[in-house]
């Protein structure tokens, strides 16, 4: 049991980690290693596809339980299940091309299949609605964050103000058409901002490499649900 639960997963993790690393340093002529790397990437996609079934089963189970027990918000669970089953039905029937469900995209004459109708007129507008909230949250976050409480916050406030003015035509207009603010904005983004980002990226990359090494040699086991070295 310990072999299946701990040692085998650690062995597979080590192999799955070492093969892509080796493939990076090995020439294209070592086709066997490159083949294994390509295969691993395909296996990952297949495993993820099966894992989605696990997620769907969990969603259905938890919402059915919520409806049965009439827990708070159970009508939303019923609505979710109706949408899930409806789109799944249209998708499966469309993929199998049964009856009026001829595919999951557009029909040859330019019409929409039921699946495409649901995706284009129900799902996409909902996605766009959530994404559009970003504009309002950006404003509220800026209003709260850009205050001159201390030196660093004041620098942030001034920099944000200059960048915002430099990015819009109004900034050029208030200077009588002179592109100074736009150039200053470009300089701030290309030099101090890029330098800071690169510094963080170097640290993060080394941190990721260190974590990857710990995972490959089996020191980090949190993803297996095992906390301490056994």
């Amino acid at each position, binding site marked *: 049991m310990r072999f299946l639960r701990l040692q085998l997963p650690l062995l597979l993790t080590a192999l799955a980690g070492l093969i892509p*690393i080796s493939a*990076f*340093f*090995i*020439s*294209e*002529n*070592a086709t066997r290693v490159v083949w294994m790397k390509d295969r691993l990437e395909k296996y*990952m996609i297949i*495993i*993820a596809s099966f*894992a*989605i*079934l*696990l*997620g*769907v089963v*969990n*969603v259905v189970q*938890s919402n059915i339980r919520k409806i049965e027990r009439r827990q708070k918000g159970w009508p939303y669970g019923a609505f979710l299940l109706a949408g899930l089953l409806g789109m799944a039905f249209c998708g499966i029937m469309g993929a199998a091309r049964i009856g009026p469900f001829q595919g999951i995209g557009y029909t040859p004459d330019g019409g929409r299949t039921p699946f495409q109708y649901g995706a284009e007129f129900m799902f996409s507008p*909902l*996605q766009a609605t*959530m*994404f559009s*909230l*970003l504009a309002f*949250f*950006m404003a*509220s*976050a*800026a209003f*709260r*964050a850009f205050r001159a409480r201390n030196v660093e916050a004041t620098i942030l406030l001034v920099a944000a103000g200059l960048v915002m003015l430099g990015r819009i035509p109004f900034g050029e207009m208030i200077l009588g058409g002179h592109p100074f603010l736009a150039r200053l904005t470009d300089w701030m983004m290309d030099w101090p901002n890029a330098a800071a*980002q690169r510094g*963080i*990226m*170097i*640290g*993060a990359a*080394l*941190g*990721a*490499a*260190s*974590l*990857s*090494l*710990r*995972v490959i*040699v089996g*020191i*980090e086991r*949190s*993803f*297996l*649900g*095992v*906390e*301490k*070295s056994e």
Partner: protein
Amino acid sequence: METMGFLGPARGGRRDQARAAPVPSDRDVAGLTLKTAEAMQMETMGFLNPDRLNALVLFLFFCTLVLVFISLARRGGRLYIRKIAGLNAIDEAVGRATELGKKVLYPPGIMSLDENQTIASLAVLGHVARMTARYNTELDVPNKDPLTFAAARETVKEAYMAEGRPDLYNDRLVHYVTYDQFAYTASVTGIMVREKPAANFLIGSFYAESLLLAEMGQSTGAIQIAGTAEIAQLPFFVCSCDYTLIGEELYAAGAYLSREPAQLGSIKGQDITKAAVGVYIITATILLLLGSGFLRRLLTIE
């Protein structure tokens, strides 16, 4: 005849253009036939890519350092790691949720297990789950990725078992939401607005939804600890959250919280490498200003 050695030729690289391979004639030597250099090139293609040799040296240097410090740490060497405010605040956040009688919300990022940030997030989740088990605080872990969902469930279950509170664990603590980014965001923000968790942990890989989650959590009055290595999302977390783990602090979280010598040793090795990289950058910049691009070419990867 030119000796090809272990490296072999690289297709399209600089080195094979510079080399002019001689073409000896076939001859028998002690019963063996030596083929022409071209035929040998075809038959004995090198194993390593010589254009990435510099990267291999750097990689081996890094691995050696990390493994040496892990070994030193395991032998009892004391290793110092600086305080990370966000990780020290985990106790405070869970304690606040316990006092208020509200839940702890922990979205572990939106990417799958092949992302390092997700693995780092699961390490922190294990620690948070142990605390919620100890204090009998409700935990909610909504997931976007199914593989992460499976791993998170195992992590939380093991944490509750390790704390001796298997009675408090149930499968509803860790649940799957949906694979779509904004549908997941809508669900998590809905949980925040309806159930008003006292503590939010936004640790892992986040993209456009980072600001939505952080701002919504901030509006409900929760204490928020965020952590990501996504550079573009860090400003949103810094503005909206009480504590933010930036880049490498997230990856060091598992080592910091567990205090395992082996893990702390890897952090030390990583820090030494970072110092070496810093020295290299400064030296290469000075040399470049003086007209020498030697150091820059040394670590250029084809």
